[in-house]
């Protein structure tokens, strides 16, 4: 048993550190965007991704035949933790979900068209799974794809497509067989984001960031841009999520918020008295720091299972996601209480404690326990797949 990184891993981390320092840019690296920091929505951020690509860091786990390094997933984990610790965009969506699915089941045409561009960060994707009626129940998606000539005509609506307003391509699940059981009638498509049949409508969130609803009005897609086998889309989606889970919910932002709070308590005063002299705050800090370490270890456990064991770490991932995101909300709430009235001032208020981060944490972390499988979904997974309890709910 070893909780430390190997020399090779440490060397890699050092390399990433050096890279981040050399490419430091507050427009690219911005932890105050909280959960949205990973979005690649500006020219500076896209340029940053190209630099990552130049280092070969996008293809770490890709097979060599597609330009990758055939490397261990552990390095992707290390890279994403590093990136998220400074609020930079992360790898995952294009390289992971889309790229790895294409490598596994895509046609030669799609591979040739997309894989090099992904590897070189020349393409930005939006992912379209969620729909008004398909949230936690993602297999309930209704977007219709009807056969027409040598392609498909898509009609319907997606929601929460965060990248819709700046992405190049849209990776979309649509129902190709309305009569099949709901998990077995979905296929995956690639659509140009500037298709005239798509209408992108912003949805603004509590944190002030933008996501989108996307409306499909007779969007035609050639069958060449359907991915893999017909009606196997949901299976591909689920498999990709299982593989990519540990690049999706990084621990670094939670650690960063706990550190922010601890550092505040360590140095701040109220009425001229050091906050850290208040036994109530000392107690709360000790509890949160302990829980933070537990969350980290559940992440370690999950990554370790993914890498050092043959099994898919579905239950481990759910434990980590559940515990760490619930902690994330507790931390945000406690930060408000501990920092006191100044914490209500909005992000960016110069004279506010933590410059308003308390506020942005409290409003953003709401989504932590919902997105990517709500806490309740994670508990169902743990109960049935982890504990073998009957599925009856």
């Amino acid at each position, binding site marked *: 048993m070893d909780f430390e990184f190997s020399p090779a891993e440490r060397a890699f981390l050092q390399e990433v550190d050096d890279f981040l320092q050399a490419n430091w840019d507050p427009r690219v690296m911005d932890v105050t965007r909280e959960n949205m920091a990973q979005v690649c929505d500006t020219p500076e951020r896209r340029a940053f991704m190209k630099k990552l690509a130049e280092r070969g860091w996008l293809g770490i786990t890709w097979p060599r035949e597609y330009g990758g390094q055939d490397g261990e997933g552990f390095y992707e984990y290390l890279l994403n933790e590093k990136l998220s610790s400074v609020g930079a965009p992360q790898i995952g969506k294009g390289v992971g979900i889309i790229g790895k699915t294409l490598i596994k089941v895509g046609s030669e045409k799609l591979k040739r068209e997309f894989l090099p561009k992904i590897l070189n960060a020349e393409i930005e994707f939006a992912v379209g799974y969620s729909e008004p009626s398909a949230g936690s*129940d993602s297999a309930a998606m209704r977007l219709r794809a009807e056969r027409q000539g040598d392609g498909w005509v898509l009609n319907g609506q997606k929601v929460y497509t965060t990248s819709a307003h700046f992405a190049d391509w849209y990776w979309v699940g649509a129902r190709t067989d309305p009569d099949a059981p709901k998990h077995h009638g979905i296929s995956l498509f690639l659509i140009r984001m500037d298709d005239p049949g798509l209408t992108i409508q912003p949805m603004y969130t509590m944190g002030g960031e933008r996501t989108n609803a996307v409306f499909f009005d007779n969007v035609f897609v050639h069958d060449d841009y359907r991915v893999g086998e017909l009606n196997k889309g949901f299976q591909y989606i689920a498999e990709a999520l299982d593989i990519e889970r540990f690049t999706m919910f990084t621990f670094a932002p939670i650690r960063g918020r706990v550190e922010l709070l601890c550092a505040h308590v360590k140095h701040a005063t109220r009425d001229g008295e050091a906050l850290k002299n208040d036994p109530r705050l000392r107690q709360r800090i000790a509890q949160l720091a302990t829980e933070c370490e537990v969350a980290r270890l559940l992440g370690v456990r999950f990554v370790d299972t993914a890498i050092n064991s043959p099994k898919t770490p579905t239950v481990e991932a759910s434990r980590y996601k559940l515990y760490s995101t619930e902690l994330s*909300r507790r931390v945000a709430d406690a930060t408000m209480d501990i920092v006191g009235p100044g914490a209500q001032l909005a992000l960016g208020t110069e004279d506010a404690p933590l410059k308003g981060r308390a506020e942005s944490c409290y409003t953003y972390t709401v989504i932590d326990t919902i997105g990517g499988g709500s806490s309740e979904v994670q508990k169902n997974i743990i109960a049935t797949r982890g504990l073998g309890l009957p599925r009856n709910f």
Partner: protein
Amino acid sequence: MDLKFSDEQNILRDMTRSLCTDHSTIAVVRAMENDPHGVPEGLWRQMGETGLLAMMLPESMGGAGFDMLDCAVIYEELGRHLAPGPYFASATLSALVLREAASAGQQQELLPGIGSGATIVTPAWLEPGNGFGPRGVQLRARPTEGGYVLHGTKRHVFHGAAAHKLLVLARTGDDEQAIDLLLVDRDAPGVRLEQQKSMASDTQYRVVFDHVAVPASARIGAPGSGWRSWEAAMYDGIILLAAWAAGGAERALEITVQYAKDREQFGKPIGAFQALAHYMADASAAVDGAKTLAYEAAWARSRGHDVRRLAPMAKLFCCKTFRDVTATGQQIHGGIGFTLDYDIQLYYRRAKQLQMNWWDAHYLEELVATDILDRELPRTIPDPFTV
């Protein structure tokens, strides 16, 4: 023992609710977000005309003779509707201070206007880096011939730009409670306001006092009496905020329950999932407890009972319930609750902020603990059945 409201109170509730339904719609609440003035015209006028802004005034000045329980009924409804506007700052807290401690002249000058809504007075109390107690008041009022000169910075001054007068807590000496309450024109030379955005998107200001001269006649009450007057008003004020929070919590739960009935996933309404149903059942118990505790505190105050324990308990519990219910509400709403389109987030952001303002949990807990542990009472938790 009887928890029924009087007919008058029921009428008052209906009146306030219908007033809010017309003038404190969600559209109004949204329109007031981050508004520099933050005074919703229609609602404010109606509150003035119906006498709600005069709730703290003696009948001689246009007050309707409401007691605290009547006021709690009003506040519960205002909370349900997240009613915006400076009614707490001006018509409740400032009015309470003025009613109890101001000279007849000061009262005559300000109270009728407060009651009609024509005059707005707002407290300037908290300071950057400081807390809720008397030691938090460090803005200095140095005595001059015939008055004071104020120097320092206040924060969380609600509706500062709309106010005609600021009710400033200022330090006049080194003793912990050497604090005075001074009425300062918002336009006085040296007063500088800067709006600061907040989580609740309410209207609040940072106010810098740069050697602001104030006449002695601006002081409320005898020298050094400021903290006492302020604290007394706060004990009343938090009872009403407790009612506001209870009302907000109840409405947030209703919105959430309705959503859970309407929204289907996995082939059934999400409220049919036991885990979610149980969140709401727990919330239901807390909300009912919060409401009843707010009523009890208000009732006790109306009867002239000591509320040193009940008032902080009420604010503590009602605000915690409001905060917890809205957090649960967000979870049950899922992703859609995170968008600005849905109303639950309006409640979520206000709930936490209310919990932190006007004495936060730490401060309230200490007040309750003091009452339980430091007073000489035969029983620390009274037996309600002891005669």
